[in-house]
């Protein structure tokens, strides 16, 4: 379907005309059967003329005007019926060698015939339109479903791949190794944090249903690893209301925001800065906000694989109800807020 309700092409014209011829023949037979007119041959010629005229007018009209609304379509049908009946009736009478006056006398029954043809043609077209419409709908649904499946597969693949960043892994291990010589107790506690982080961050060791509190525990472990590594250059605070901790919440949604804040905001900044995680329990929404006083975003910098992953996951989990909002933090840095509906998750 391109512009109008039905696309006129050669195949359709041929099909419409053959149906018309068949239908005309049937009408001629019926008329002869009820002893109308002057025998089968006359009836056949007249009804073919009327039928083909209506059908041609209708097709030509559709081709030239391309009606887009149903009303327009109906008007076209009416015009085709009236014009086609008059022109076709006259032509048919001449072709069958009948006098025009005879045609004038039987105008009303001929008109009724015309309407019958018209209804047949119009039914043919509207069913055609319904078929192509539902075909298009099925096709669209299929494309949507396939796109959806592809997206889901890609997102989970990215989630699998993006967990442990090699820099993070090796730098953390270096620190632990160095602490084993210098400060055994701190080394042990860093190793414990690292194990806790790995346990919950690796997809194969992660449980299914998780809560806000569990996500915060993992982030706590991650941040205390970075606290050892960055020393005074990192200050952080996690400020989640007690009542929010038991709310169900998908894993690894806030984590990438924290990683982003450290990796692109605070770690590359001379002097480091502060990272704050806040939770707000609103009427309909949960807000989880990660703000840092780091370098902030460069307008021409990369758009961040981590952030687009979060966006995609929100989309696939909550549709249009989940959002990731990015804002500039004051006086410097970035503020990322996840907004998800309260009841689900």
């Amino acid at each position, binding site marked *: 379907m*391109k512009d109008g309700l039905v696309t006129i092409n050669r195949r359709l014209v041929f099909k419409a005309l053959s149906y018309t011829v068949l239908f005309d023949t049937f009408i001629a037979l019926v008329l002869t059967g009820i002893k109308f007119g002057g025998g089968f041959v006359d009836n056949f010629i007249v009804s073919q003329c009327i039928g083909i005229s209506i059908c041609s007018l209708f097709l030509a009209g559709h081709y030239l005007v391309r009606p887009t609304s149903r009303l327009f379509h109906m008007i076209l049908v009416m015009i085709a019926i009236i014009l086609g009946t008059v022109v076709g009736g006259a032509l048919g009478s001449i072709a069958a060698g009948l006098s025009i006056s005879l045609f004038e006398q039987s105008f009303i029954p001929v008109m009724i015939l015309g309407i019958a043809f018209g209804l047949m043609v119009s039914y043919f077209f509207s069913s055609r339109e319904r078929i192509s419409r539902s075909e298009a709908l099925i096709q669209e649904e299929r494309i949507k479903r396939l796109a959806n499946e592809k997206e889901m597969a890609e997102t989970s693949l990215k989630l699998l791949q993006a967990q442990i960043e090699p820099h993070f892994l*090796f730098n953390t291990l270096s620190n632990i*190794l160095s*602490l084993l010589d210098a400060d055994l107790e701190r080394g042990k506690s860093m190793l414990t944090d690292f194990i806790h982080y790995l346990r919950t961050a690796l997809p194969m060791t992660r449980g299914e249903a998780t809560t806000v509190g569990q996500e915060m525990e993992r982030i706590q472990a991650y941040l205390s690893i970075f606290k050892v590594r960055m020393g005074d250059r990192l200050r952080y605070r996690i400020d989640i209301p007690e009542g929010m901790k038991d709310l169900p919440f998908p894993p690894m949604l806030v984590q990438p925001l924290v990683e982003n804040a450290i990796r692109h905001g605070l770690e590359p900044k001379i002097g480091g800065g502060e990272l704050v995680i806040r939770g707000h329990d609103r009427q309909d929404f949960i807000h989880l906000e990660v703000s840092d006083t780091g370098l902030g975003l*460069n307008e021409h910098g*990369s758009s961040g694989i981590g*952030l*687009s992953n979060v966006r995609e996951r929100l989309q696939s989990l909550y549709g249009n109800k989940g959002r990731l909002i990015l*804002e500039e933090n004051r006086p410097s840095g970035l503020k990322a807020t996840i907004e998800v509906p309260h009841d689900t998750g």
Partner: protein
Amino acid sequence: MTQAKAIIADDEQQLRIHLKSQLSDIWPELMICGEAENGKEALELIAEYGPDVAFLDIKMPGLSGMEVARRIAKTCRVVFITAYDKYAVEAFDHEAIDYLLKPVTRERLNKAVKRLQKEIAASSKPPSDLSEIVERALAGLYKKGTSGYLRWIRAQHGDGVRLIPVDDVYYFQASDKYTLVLTKQEELLIKKAIKELDDELDPGQFWRIHRGTIVNAHCIAKVSHSLTGRGVVRLKDRPELLTVSRRYIHVFKQM
């Protein structure tokens, strides 16, 4: 031979302490004359002490270890330390330059120290030209990074500034002095003119279709041509239709 001097640059204090103590075991004669926690400090230390060796972490705030090496080319020997830099390691692998992978093992450090001692004893001159190798490694590192096109839109929103990835923008519409930015669910006004945006956005993804409109090609559902030579763009997930003026219709000609 005078006593060999070195500096250590790493943004993580614990790793500096560790390297220092390992070096004092393996090479007790080496004098560590300074520690830096970012690239700028490293440059200052090198200028101040003129060390024979600089141990430089690649990933540091401010200037990276490689940028430091580029600036001090030929004035001292450089040993790079990195946790994981695929491109850098590839670039160094076949060259005379030394690099250490974190965590630094004792054997590997031993080897590096032996090599350094030999070189310092053989000549007082640092290795030929490492700048070319550093350039190559840097090129590799930046290859994966920025493209130069605008990636984020900054928009005043309430009393804050919102940041919108350009990939989320469906289209830009000029409106008086401002430009309207339309995403799937939102409309925001920015001060940047449509002309500026046209220059800064990736032309492969953002198409000018009208004097006042730039559309994200990824968000186009359908384009139809009209008899008058204009086009109409239908978007995914947004109801409005955008007009393609005759001047820009060539964008869609190949379709």
